[in-house]
């Protein structure tokens, strides 16, 4: 059974213990390529699109999706990353620390922002991300792409592009890494 440190559980200091594999690495790549095609289809191209990966799990996926879009449309894709720690609604309730420095170049006013994250769960991270994006201008629209939608939403948020819908139990965890997608639990160190 694979056992590895899950980087973004750092504030809690737990260890992710994987139980079973949901997608292997090629399946993740195929899902990303399909989602990239869906982004192009929905927006009639990539004009004005900015991909914004959420720290930390969404950032590598956004980078890979930008590469897929480049290959499909033969055009440069604007890419950014966003850390939502300062916008979370649970500051003071649980350990909240920024993981990385936000990198969004320029004003988002009039742009089509595609938020990219690895796992959509309660929706609270996305709520925080929507607030954060506001501070960078008034985007024409914001769309959401996630590799895994695991349910258990606590806010009225739904994704526009999904790699895989994955029914889970609340206490389970989903890890998206270079070697694919795993389902498991977070154990104490």
């Amino acid at each position, binding site marked *: 059974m694979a056992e590895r440190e899950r980087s*973004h*559980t750092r504030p*809690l200091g737990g260890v992710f213990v994987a139980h079973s594999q949901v997608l292997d690495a090629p399946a993740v790549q195929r899902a990303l390529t399909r989602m990239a095609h869906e982004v192009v289809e929905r927006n009639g191209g990539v004009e004005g699109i900015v991909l914004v990966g959420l720290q930390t799990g969404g950032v590598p996926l956004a980078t890979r999706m930008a590469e897929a879009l480049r290959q499909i449309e033969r055009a440069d894709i604007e890419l950014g990353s966003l*850390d939502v*720690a*300062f*916008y979370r609604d*649970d*500051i*003071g*309730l*649980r*350990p*909240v*620390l*920024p993981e*990385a*420095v*936000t*990198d969004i170049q320029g*004003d988002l006013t009039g742009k089509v922002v595609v938020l990219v994250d690895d796992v959509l*769960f*309660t929706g*609270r*991270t996305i709520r925080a991300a929507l*607030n954060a994006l506001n*501070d*960078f201008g008034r985007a024409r629209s914001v769309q959401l792409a996630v590799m895994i939608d695991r349910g258990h939403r606590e806010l009225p948020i739904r994704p526009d592009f999904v790699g895989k819908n994955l029914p889970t139990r*609340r*206490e389970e*965890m989903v890890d998206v890494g270079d070697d694919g997608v795993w389902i498991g639990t*977070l154990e104490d160190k």
Partner: protein
Amino acid sequence: MTRPHHLLSVADLGIDGIAEVLRVAEAFAEVERRSMPKVPTLRGKVVATLFFEESTRTRLSFETAAKRLSADVLSLAVANSSVKKGESLRDTVETVEAMGIDALIVRHASSGAPHQVARWVTRARVINAGDGWHEHPTQALLDCFTVRQVLAERKGAAPEELGIDCFEGLRVLIVGDIRHSRVARSEILAYTALGAHVTLAAPGSLLPPSLEGWPVTVAPDFDAALAGADVVSLLRLQSERGSGSFVPSLREYTAGWGLTARRVALLSDDAIVTHPGPMVRGVEIASDVADLPRTVVTQQVTNGVAVRMAILFLLLGGEWPGGVPHG
């Protein structure tokens, strides 16, 4: 790392704590660079500045930091307060805390006053904004932050990529009124914790009576020390603490220990000059030297806001309940 309740001394943080402050401050420095440099992080929190001693930049910097975090800010102007009617520090603190204030930022002419305040409060966090000759921890942290920023810029790297390794073996020369300087004490703690070598240069009368146990050396030759320094930290003569009587005259002090154009020529090309402000041009630093690109006083002031945002966020941002699943 366990979060300290208060920031009274750099020693409260330890090396991991300093590294964490520098890391989190980078994220706030990005917020500062935005066209709308404000985040909702500490909405509903109340921060009070209690300055029993004059200050321009530190008070403004803390208040700006708190406002950029969306906290409410109250500032007690001691000159117009009940302190003037004879109210004790303890009663002032208890009154302020009874109003539901979450953080008290305290500056006081007496060394140890913020430590006393921290013993009296029941719930509020206390931040030392300078106490007598003792410590000024946020100044030392922003100095480290600024030095790392300059080192990163030269390497073409992001400061957070350098971590704290860039301080290992760094040669820091602290010059001037070390005896009366709280900045010097905090800088010595911070720089040495990060692995830098700290040397002091000052006339004997402006060195502390004893340096026993301090992890520093005293430069036998000021000019030679300047030639070997990576960072030169200049201090102001603390005339309000009576420094004037420790030197024969300001002109002699400048001749012996001021960073003049002649001495700047001794520095290596890469040496960085810091000053906590306020600078007295023509005394500890020549006016032309103050305006050189290697003198990073303005960056220090800008970074002060980001570092203080990080301190407020780390102290007020919450407890460690543990075991809550990741959202």
